[in-house]
């Protein structure tokens, strides 16, 4: 019994000793979050909540076994909360460096429509010329 108590105490005390850390960055509208106690001790399968200023949930994610999670940016600014059970959590305010989902909609498309149209025009012109040169002369 004493052993069980001692083991439980050691487990709890190790949780107290470990602070949960958050590392987040974004690239091209995608948010990457890493959560860990120390670098080699990831926060596995931990719940990540992205909250707006009114504490409304924008997104809920779960970390993988490396303590990592990623998602499209839900807003330009939000709070990231990681929960590791036993009431242990860490929170940080995050300001996105790249475009959010909403901003990305208003940006010029990456699809090179001008080049596609030019290519189609060249093909039509080429076959048009070919058709014109190969057509049979009309005999009146």
């Amino acid at each position, binding site marked *: 019994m004493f052993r069980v108590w001692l083991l439980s105490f050691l487990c709890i005390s190790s949780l107290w000793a470990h602070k949960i*850390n958050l590392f987040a960055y974004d690239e091209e509208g995608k948010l990457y979050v890493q959560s860990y106690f120390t*670098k080699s001790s990831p926060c596995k399968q931990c719940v990540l909540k992205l909250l707006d200023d009114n504490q409304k949930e924008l997104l809920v994610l779960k970390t993988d076994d490396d303590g990592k999670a990623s998602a499209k940016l839900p807003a330009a600014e939000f709070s990231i909360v990681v929960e590791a059970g036993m009431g242990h959590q860490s929170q940080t305010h995050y300001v996105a460096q790249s475009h959010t989902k909403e901003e990305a909609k208003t940006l010029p498309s990456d699809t090179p429509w001008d080049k596609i149209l030019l290519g189609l025009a060249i093909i039509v012109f080429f076959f048009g010329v070919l058709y014109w040169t190969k057509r049979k002369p009309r005999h009146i």
Partner: protein
Amino acid sequence: MKVLLASLVCASSLFAHFQTVMTDKSVIEQGSSTKVSINYEFTHPFEQKLMNMEKPKEAGVFLDGKKTSLLNILQAVEKNKLTTWKSEYTIKEPGVYQFYVDPVPYFEPAEEKFIRHQTKTIIDAFGSGEGWDKPIGLKAEIIPLSRPYSLYAGNIFSAQVLFKGKPVPNAEVEVEFYNTKGLKAPNEMYITQVFKADKNGVFHVSLPQEGWWGFAALMDDDEKIKKEGKSYPVELGAVLWLKTEAMK
């Protein structure tokens, strides 16, 4: 004349030379700038008397067992016609980063020896928490036994002195405060504090002020350097810099 010369030699030995590596931040947290500015000086830290520093032989950053050279991005900074150096490094992931420099040995004519201080400082990015007690493989190196980037003024700092990876019994460690506050020492003996390590090369030092502290474990190198046909001994220094903060 001999007395005068002897006095000069004694006087100059009181003013310890320190190679420095200092960063503009010791801890990087989420949301703060990830750009680290690194300054390299050869100086008398308490008296703030600079010496000229040649471009070092090696300068870099150590992370997770791997060294990355910063030598190509070092920039000279002129201060009162003396050269110091600076560089920048952008942190991209959590980790403990050790910034180091191995300078060109400096010839000290008064002591007829070369001085080579292999120097480092350690910072943490995003609470990584691991690696601050890992040697980076310098010939002479101080390994912290106290986490070196989160000490309060007044804390005790413990560390171990290594030479070629092995503890140096009874190593002599000089300690100086990087005195940007204009503090006055009661007398010259207080400028450089001296401590002895135990048989395992372990020493303990209390740090009474907030700011940068330098630790130089000095030893005789097993190599000599030739200058103008004569061989001179080399004072090899394992140097570590850390910053304490005030508890407010």
